[in-house]
């Protein structure tokens, strides 16, 4: 059928450890071969000289807002923004309306994605019915319908007994449990990180401890149940230390961090710009340093965006009234290159790993590699092109990014899903 030959790029494939100039041939939606001097007369040729060719990037933490909040984002628009950000696969959180807590909603998302999404979309199911934290959702049925994990992202399970039962159910299905770690009693009334800046600005604080106490609880429950457990958008130094400790004890624990949590601090909030309002909140420099150290040391498994679109009118309000969350799909690679690679903190193989084998291993996806037979998903990016992010040009339906106007060096150039070029920069 169809073939695509990506020629002359620097191919980095963390799964095999490969890093060198090579060609990648994709046929009928799957990787056929990687090597030098590949030829194919029928293939469409993409010249990747001077570029980096990597397995398709995976963002395991995205909010697509469909069904229910289509004014903010749809499966179609979210997938387009993902493609423009260099992602070939995204996983969508269940806090839609209705909540993805049963096979019907899961099937709707899967079907809809098949029809309209440019990239692969894998749903994450709710832990509890309606994400109300009380009764377990239909985890088994959702698993059959295609979920890759369970999470009550944004409305975390407060009852430890319910969380225990969820972990037991997930373990039986070999699904990871992803938790948005926030003690809702400790964070109540908070709009930003609790510290000198919140006191200065007169805004309610969300203490680091509100994240840490839930991470601690969950790690104990993960040990009790043997479940695979994943900390979403980890943002504090103590949570990082606890995850490191749990890993040293051999627990099946993983964690993700977002670009905004390692790129900026709560110092940004002095303008009361609601595009700096999200959960967990932007923390202080001490926490940012710990997150970066976790990336460097290997404790962090995944970079995920927590792409959380909100309609402009929702964000054009007094700070304390605005909803939490910012978009992130289109700026993730640029920010991560700037903060991690250009500053010499990590090498390119580690960088690619955080977006490919990292999430693929957490979710047990057969992706994130250029091995022959793997899905023909490829992300092509570079390290040098200068570009400026203009949120008004975003392919997302929402505009709530704090990074509009920021200049980047290097970023996504082409996104290939199952051998098809679904996005390329001009």
């Amino acid at each position, binding site marked *: 059928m169809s073939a695509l030959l990506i020629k002359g790029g620097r191919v980095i494939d963390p799964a095999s450890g490969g890093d060198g100039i090579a060609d990648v041939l994709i046929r009928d939606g799957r990787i056929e071969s990687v090597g030098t001097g590949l030829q194919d007369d029928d293939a469409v040729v993409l010249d990747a000289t001077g570029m980096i060719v990597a397995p398709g990037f995976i963002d395991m933490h995205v909010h697509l807002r469909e069904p229910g909040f289509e004014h903010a984002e749809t499966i179609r628009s979210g997938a387009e923004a993902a493609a423009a950000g260099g992602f070939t696969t995204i996983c969508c959180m269940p806090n839609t309306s209705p909540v993805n807590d049963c096979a019907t909603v899961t099937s709707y998302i899967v079907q809809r994605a098949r029809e309209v999404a440019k990239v692969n979309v894998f749903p994450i199911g709710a832990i509890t019915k309606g994400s109300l934290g009380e009764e377990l959702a239909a985890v088994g049925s959702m698993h059959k319908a295609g979920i890759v994990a369970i999470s009550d992202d944004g409305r975390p399970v407060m009852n430890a007994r319910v969380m225990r039962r969820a972990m037991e159910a997930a373990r039986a299905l070999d699904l990871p449990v992803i938790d948005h770690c926030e003690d809702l009693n400790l964070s109540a009334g908070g709009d930003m990180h609790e510290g*000198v800046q919140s006191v200065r600005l007169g*805004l*309610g604080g969300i203490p680091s401890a509100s994240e840490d106490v839930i991470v601690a609880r969950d790690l104990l429950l993960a040990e009790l149940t043997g479940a695979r457990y994943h900390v979403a958008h980890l943002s504090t130094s103590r949570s990082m230390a606890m995850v490191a400790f749990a890993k040293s004890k051999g627990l099946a624990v993983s964690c993700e961090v977002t670009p905004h949590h390692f790129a900026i601090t709560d110092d940004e909030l002095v303008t*009361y710009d609601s595009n700096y309002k999200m959960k967990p909140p932007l923390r202080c420099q001490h926490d940012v340093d710990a997150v970066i150290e976790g990336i460097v040391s290997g404790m962090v498994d995944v970079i995920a965006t927590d792409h959380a679109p909100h309609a402009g009118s929702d964000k054009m*309000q*007094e700070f304390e009234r605005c909803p939490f969350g910012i978009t992130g799909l289109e700026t993730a690679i640029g920010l991560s290159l700037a903060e991690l690679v250009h500053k010499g903190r990590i090498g390119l193989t580690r960088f690619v790993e955080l977006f490919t084998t990292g999430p693929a291993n957490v979710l047990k996806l057969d992706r994130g590699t250029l091995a022959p037979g793997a899905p023909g998903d490829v992300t092509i990016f570079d390290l040098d092109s200068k570009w400026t992010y203009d949120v008004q040009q975003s392919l997302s339906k929402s505009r709530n990014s704090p990074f509009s106007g920021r200049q980047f060096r290097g970023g996504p150039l082409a996104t290939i899903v199952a051998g098809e070029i679904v996005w390329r920069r001009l």
Partner: protein
Amino acid sequence: MLRGLLTTPSKSACGLLDIESLDRAEIEAILERARYFQPAPGETYRRLETLRGKMIVNLFFEASTRTRVSFEIAERRLGADTVSIAAQTSSVSKGESLVDTLNTLVAMRPDAIVMRHSASGAPHFLARHLQIPIINAGDGTHEHPTQALLDARTILDRGKSLEGLRVAIIGDIAHSRVARSNVHLLSRFGADIVLCGPPSLVPRELENLAPGVRLAYDMKEALRNADVIMMLRVQLERQHEAPMSAGEYFRFYGLRLEHLALAKSDVIVMHPGPINRGRELSSDVADSQRSVILNQVENGVAVRMAVLERILP
């Protein structure tokens, strides 16, 4: 012309959003000019024509008596036309957003907006989107800049210097915009500031708010050798949990006459109002010779005249 928040490239380059972004010279200039507006004993404020033809909208999204009336009197004494709106009677109660309400008002071409709002940063948010001077008359738990200015004027009127001044601010610091504005102003002039109250209302991070600030949880320690005692109202409406009982609060953090002996002999007692007698201070303190609470109210007009004159040339 006063600047807004320095860190924001504000479209409305003038206005008064907070004390933190004012420098010492600007504060001194306002305080000095306010003295010129103060009436002689037994007289009323002079009626001037400085702002003749100017239209000022006073927009109060939160209940206020003294601040709103004080601004109105200041505006009228300077010859400006004024319109005052309380949120209950505006379209806000019909679900209109703050930006839309303000855009509607700005379309009617006033020269400045004086605004009080329950959300911290609301005037800063608007200043980024509107091209009109905004004077902050209190935003949430953030700042109340004209209150700090009138407090400073009142302290100076008593012949005290701000440099080295020992100030005890007592009560619900966490929720007090008055405390924040006063800390920034007093710190800029080298005062020693003790913040005191129950631990849940005096978060530890306050110590790093400005130079010269320290915290105390024992009122007697805070009052020792004080030149100025500022008492604050307990803002039950802003708290997210059950407060300390009124009796317990008054026992440990209420100001009573016998406390004044711990302070300097010429100590003054201040309160931004409204006062709750028997809650944060006893009636005899409120009515004592040491209380300057009514002088504060009086100075409010003079200080606001000075601010308005500076913002509307």
